[in-house]
């Protein structure tokens, strides 16, 4: 079990053809904070090797969905399945096992501030592998180099920039060579070049690790560049209104909110969407 985590890169087929098996299934999911229902009736499937993007307006519940998928929040109804096994209904030990195959990058990086970058990445390795200190140092060095932070191992999170923190968070999320990587707005707050580099990195990870990637993002260029599949959450109807690849959505989804979002606010043809309200009134 313990070695499996470190060897998982080797045993996974890299590039499977179309018709890939389902990896994550969301079934009939409702999410709520007390009486306030954030989203209801979410059902979709994420295939192995997908770059799956969760889209929607600010405050519609994307982060909430992602937190529910990794067990930080409990759904009000419905379940999340990984490889056909229910995560929601799993007992704590089983959940922990499933979590070990996932890596999460939080919106602000969420590095452990009392540990150096190297220690941040080393911690999961110490907890879940039998690697000795020298081997761990090697792995840490590799992960830091992958995100372009070679040599920053001894820095504390407070002493590096926000973008570097995100990349370090990514390195930590990859520590155990996860099968699924979750990203919450990875490129928010990054300059265009860094965010392009991050996109490339994500694609690289997907092909080299064969990982499934679940991504929350507002960045249209990223969405069109890297997403193979996605879901659109609508703030008004409090449910999902479209699934499929972003290109498909743009071409064939009739929902005006989806069109407006994917066209960056430019009104869709036929859907008299709102632009600069009030300017006509004066």
């Amino acid at each position: 079990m313990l070695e499996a985590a470190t060897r998982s890169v080797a045993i996974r087929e890299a590039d499977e053809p179309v018709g890939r098996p389902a990896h994550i299934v969301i079934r009939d999911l409702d999410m709520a904070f007390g009486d306030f229902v954030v989203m209801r009736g979410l059902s979709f499937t994420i295939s192995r090797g997908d770059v799956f993007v969760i889209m929607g307006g600010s405050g519609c519940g994307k982060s909430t969905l992602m937190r529910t998928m990794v067990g930080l929040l409990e759904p009000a109804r419905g379940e999340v399945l990984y490889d056909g096994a229910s995560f929601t209904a799993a007992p704590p030990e089983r959940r922990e096992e499933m979590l070990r195959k996932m890596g999460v990058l939080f919106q602000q990086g969420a590095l452990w501030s009392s540990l150096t970058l190297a220690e941040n990445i080393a911690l999961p390795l110490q907890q879940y592998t039998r690697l000795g200190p020298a081997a761990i140092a090697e792995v840490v060095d590799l992960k830091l180099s992958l995100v372009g932070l070679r040599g920053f191992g001894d820095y504390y999170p407070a002493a590096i920039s926000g973008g570097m923190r995100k990349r370090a968070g990514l390195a930590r999320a990859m520590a155990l060579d996860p099968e699924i990587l979750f990203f919450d707005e990875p490129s928010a707050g990054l300059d265009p070049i860094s965010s392009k580099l991050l996109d490339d990195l994500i694609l690289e990870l997907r092909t080299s690790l064969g990982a499934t990637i679940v991504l929350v993002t507002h960045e249209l260029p990223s969405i069109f560049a890297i997403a193979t599949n996605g879901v659109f959450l609508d703030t008004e109807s409090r449910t999902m209104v479209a699934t499929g690849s972003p290109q498909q959505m743009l071409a064939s989804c009739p929902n005006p909110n989806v069109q407006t979002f994917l066209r960056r606010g430019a009104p869709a043809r036929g859907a008299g969407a709102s632009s600069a309200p009030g300017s006509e009134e004066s």
Partner: protein
Amino acid sequence: MTEPHELSFRRDEGQALEVRLAGSWTKAEGLPAVDELRRAIDLPAPPTRVAFDARGVLRWDSALVAVVDRLVELARARGVPVALDGLPAGVVRLVALADAVPERAGAAAAGRSPGLAARLGEVVLALWDDVVGFVPFIGDSVLAITALLTGRARMRVTDFFLAMQDCGASALGIVSLISLLVGLILAFVGAVQLQQFGATIYVADLVGIAMTREMGAMMTGIIMAGRTGASFAAQIGNMKVTEEIDALRTFGISPMEFLVLPRMAALFLMMPLLTLYSDFVGMAGGMIVGVGMLDLTPEQYVKHTMDAVSMTNFSIGVVKGSVFGVLVALAGCLRGMQCGNDSAAVGRATTSAVVTSIVLIIVTDAVFTVICNVLGL
């Protein structure tokens, strides 16, 4: 420099309301009360329509926009149509922008101020939640301790040593100072009374027993609540805010084992030592008064203290100290884990950790006293 501005309402025969604005409408001049606006709309009856005449406005900023927006909102709520022409074009655009996103249903609920009874009820419910919130936390910590004892707990030994240092060696200074002063005060108060009976030597008994049974443990507990408990709450609360705790969870690492356990273990181990130390420093304080004020010799004082203070007294104090240590760690960590996700919440968590610890310490001390009394110790 403020200039006068003018706001007047005029109704025509058809009951249309014309709002006339003139002068300088900036934040420096202030805003009219909402009630005044409401009266203008509602009295004698809602108008058929609202129009503006702002030709006399010399200067404006968001003050004017706020007034107009409020009027528009009041009118809309009563189904009265509003014509915005007659206002500066910038104001019209800003008002339209402010109205573009409808208020989320329930979003304003938090702003309503409830009545006295409702508030009292809320306080009681919050208190109850507080008590109930402690129970699962204690359960979790027992599980974590079991994991520790069976060697399955995931915590870094370094964290444990850091916590030990933080609540052991680094606390010696303040514990010394407070204990010495408490010993001095006890001896002084006792001396004044005992002098009347010529029984000054009993100051040694008084200070010795009071320090070992009660004051050593309690003062150390309270110091640790303010020093270490508060810092635990702030550290953990801040980790909550920055999602560091969530990051632990997603790695399947229990924050109970990883964060709470080393801190609790460290306080549990250091508190008895600190208590003993405090006992001795307190007695030294007593001796200073005894020797300096009451003309006792140090030998006399030490001998009397040794006769008076039994092993039982020491043990009671030390046991209490350990229990207080666990309570302080629990309260600090619990408040940290319960912390909301902004920096104000961290402040509240810290305050609440100290208050909770001190209340728990005093209540537990009372319970101990009763138990010792029943057992005849």
